[in-house]
């Protein structure tokens, strides 16, 4: 097994192009090392992107924030301006693993792992994050929703990797939130996850919302009906009930060791309601 740690994007792309076998990307490694140790994968090569310039940076850009692919959850949670702008995305990343894992785990890695239960992905989808992908033709930007394709599958090509993730400028009177359900209080994988990002108009009504669900389908999905349910409302009981019903209805989970279909559908509604209330309050809304 070959290990490569280039220092430029071009060198990394070149190395990927030269690989015919199974090459895995290493940023934080919190998924990769588990798979290696549990013998789920036997890679021919590992490409470590941590030494590439910019990969560890959180940079202000056009009023938004660009987050390098090797930035850890702990670094994001210690970045005050980022926390103020996108509290939902940051809290979602912060839920992954333990304190030790937080020192390593990355937003990009969580996305690339392709898990429908990835905590940060519903939050990023609600936030309308843009993913910058490096490949043989240079870089290209795609909406985060286009990356997941199914459990363990992404739309990234074998010769591409994620270089950074961009969270757009936060409008006035807006905020976001992420909640997940796990049977424990930490060190667990979402049975249901829900990210909500919303903006209020000057009268305090929800002007625009994005609601995304995780772990209740083959990939993280946006639920436009849930957004519609609360747009134009002050998140009154009727709007909350409609949001709850929309989330429950949109969830298409499986029965497995982590939860039943009925349980997941029900909890999707509960979390949608609870996350929306948090985002609403953070945006300055008053019920």
């Amino acid at each position: 097994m070959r290990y490569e740690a280039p220092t430029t994007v071009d060198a990394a792309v070149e190395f990927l192009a030269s690989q015919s076998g199974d090459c895995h990307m290493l940023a934080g490694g919190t998924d990769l090392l588990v798979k290696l140790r549990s013998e789920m994968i036997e890679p021919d090569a590992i490409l470590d992107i941590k030494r590439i310039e910019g990969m560890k940076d959180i940079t202000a850009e056009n009023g938004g924030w660009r987050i390098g692919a090797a930035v850890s959850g702990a670094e994001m949670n210690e970045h005050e301006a980022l926390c103020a702008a996108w509290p939902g995305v940051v809290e979602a990343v912060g839920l992954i693993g333990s304190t030790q894992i937080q020192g390593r785990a990355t937003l990009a890695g969580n996305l690339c792992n392709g898990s429908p239960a990835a905590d940060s992905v519903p939050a990023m989808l609600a936030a309308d994050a843009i993913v910058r992908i490096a490949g043989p033709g240079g870089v290209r930007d795609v909406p985060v929703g286009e990356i997941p394709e199914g459990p363990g599958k992404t739309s990234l090509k074998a010769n591409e990797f994620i270089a950074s993730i961009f969270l757009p400028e936060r409008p006035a009177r807006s905020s976001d939130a992420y909640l997940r359900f796990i049977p424990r209080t930490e060190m667990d994988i979402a049975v249901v996850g829900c990210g909500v990002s919303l903006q209020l108009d000057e009268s305090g009504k929800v002007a625009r919302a994005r609601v995304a669900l995780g772990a209740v389908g083959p990939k993280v999905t946006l639920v436009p009906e849930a957004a519609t349910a609360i747009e134009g409302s002050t998140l009154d009981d009727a709007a909350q009930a409609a949001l709850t019903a929309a989330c429950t209805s949109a969830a298409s989970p499986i029965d497995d060791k982590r939860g039943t279909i009925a349980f997941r559908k029900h909890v999707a509604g509960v979390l949608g309601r609870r996350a929306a209330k948090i985002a609403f309050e953070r945006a300055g809304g008053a019920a």
Partner: protein
Amino acid sequence: MALDDRSKTRDFKVIGTRPVRPDGIDKVTGRAKFGADATAPGMLTGRVLRSPHPHARIRRIDASKAEALPGVKAVVTRADFGEVPEDVFDILDNCMAGEKALYDGHAVAAVAASSPAVAKRAAKLIEVEYEPLPHVTDVDEAMKPEAPALHEGRTEETVPEGMSPNVISRVQFGHGDIEAGLAQADRVVERTYRTAATHQGYIEPHACLASMGPDGQADLWCCTQGHYLVRNTCAAILGMEQGQLRVTASEIGGGFGGKTTVFLEPVALALSRKAGRPVKMVMSRSEVLRASGPTASSSVDVRIGMTKDGRITAGFAELRYQGGAYPGSPVDMGSMSAFAPYDLENVRTVGWDIVTNRPKQAAYRAPGAPMAAFAVESAIDELAKGFGLDPLEVRLKNGADEGTKASYGPTYPAIGLMATLEAAKSHPHWSAPLGKGQGRGVACGFWFNFGGDTCVSLNITPDGTVTVSEGNPDIGGSRASMTMMAAEELGIPYDQVRTIIADTGSLGQNEVTDGSRVTFAVGLATIEAARNAKREMCRRAAMVWGIDEEAVVWEDGAARPSGPNAGEHPPMTLAEIAAIASNTGGPIAGHYEVNAEGAGVSFATHMVDVEVDRDTGATKILRYTVFQDAGKAVHPSYVEGQFQGGAVQGIGWALNEEYIYGDDGVLQNPGFLDYRVPVASDLPMIDTVILEIPNPGHPYGVRGVGETSIVPPLAAIANAVSEAAGVRMTDLPMSPPRILAAIENG
């Protein structure tokens, strides 16, 4: 060994204090050597090939391709083991399958190779031809006559004809007339309770290093709760004399009963014998969960009758435990302990031992008792609450005390159940207000405790320090407690004594660390070894002084003349006697060998507050208090740790832990992600109240404390959750989907 008269009133100097644990620094600095830390020159890596089928006939094993791989030094299958004595046949068959693989993860072959990578490749090259057979993993399903049968001809005479061959044995305990008792009741609760199989969840996976020479002498280093048991079992399986196999126990990262048997050790020895090199084997977490010994799952029918003033008129329980692929589930102990906390005129339990296509169960902290207590204590709670009675008062009204004829036969000497109930009743926790969506539960628990074969050697060094050698791995603080008891008895400071865990070549037979026996039995032996050493030191002082040895007593760490004709002599301290030992007859030591009896049964009462989220079915443990009789707490911090640890394991068992098998009979959650033990943030500080009702069978009154604490929590939590959720929960674990479904179904 009777309680010393003066122990009831004496002022202990060391016992009851909280000195720094002697293994602490090593464990927090990483210097401690655990099972996987053993190494030897020329060491090979061993790896087990495991069955992917829950039940399959093994048609053929062809290891030729693996053996041809460079770096492979040996492959063993069952054919490499000879005929073995009947009492270890199942143990061998569990370590290395014979005709059939009986569960997902059952070992079918093993390889020793020059590196882990080669061993892994080699294992894949071993060809096994399986004939898959129908399987069964559920205890009630396995009892049905049409269920797939694991074994033929293993059924005992106690089982009526016509039942499935998976039903191995039936036990029965009790006295009185159940139907007559139930007829006196104002209400009878009749329910079925179920618990899932759970794993001890010890942090350290099984690991060992085996080295056998061409002369047949062998050494084995391993992580175990009893290296003497490992020695005897492995010697029997490998056809060795016990004296030719020396076993050294490593530090142990938890066991809770799960390390009271062997899994890797005979295989590592067989590989070493064949390869002529030391072989190290370490289980992965997945292997631990698939192929070590979780406890039984259970299905229990209960009928209990109560009068409206809270008197239990009759108690009946029928318990069905599956203990995996081999006979020996702890249903006997479940049946004995189910009603043990109560003084009942009419009581009966019937227990069935069932086999299924799951790993062979091993002991888990008070094996068999928690499931039985869950059923009985839930039913008692339901009756008490149904009559509007205080559940503690109901237990006080029916509780066992000195002189009670226990449901399993004996008549109790002085016991501590009532003391724990009284302490619970007067504790501020019991009267604290509860909020909306919250519930409080209480339950009692019992455990037998055990003594057994024990051998201790206490040596006085020339400079007057003391070393104690015991033969039980230090799993719950035994080095600290033996050091304390030796220091107390000798009248010297704690830090003048060091206790080590000796290998099997250094002491006589020692029973495995089980039955909460070590602080009691090894403690008793340590005290007696110290007394023997004191007698010898008094004899040496008498020799120096030229007086009769009967005229010398030992007080405050020194020999002193005593009695009318002893004369005036300044005391001789332990160090002074040690310094001249060579001139007074040679080294001084004290020994003690005993099959310790009088362990003293143990009782606890637990109280827990929970909050149930009615939208998600999630349960939060808000407050938890353990009340338990310790007889005499040698090192109270360790005692509290045992109380807390049992409660926490019980919380896991009650709320989230379970072995989940798919329809394919394969374990779906062989890892700590989906086998959910509680994490620190799930728990409040577990409060503890130590009661001290001296055990009449120990010089200082010590009782074992390690196991009782896991007996009450399942029921205490279920009683609290049932109150908070407004619906009676009868199946464990009370996972969020199960609670939510119960709330929705009313």
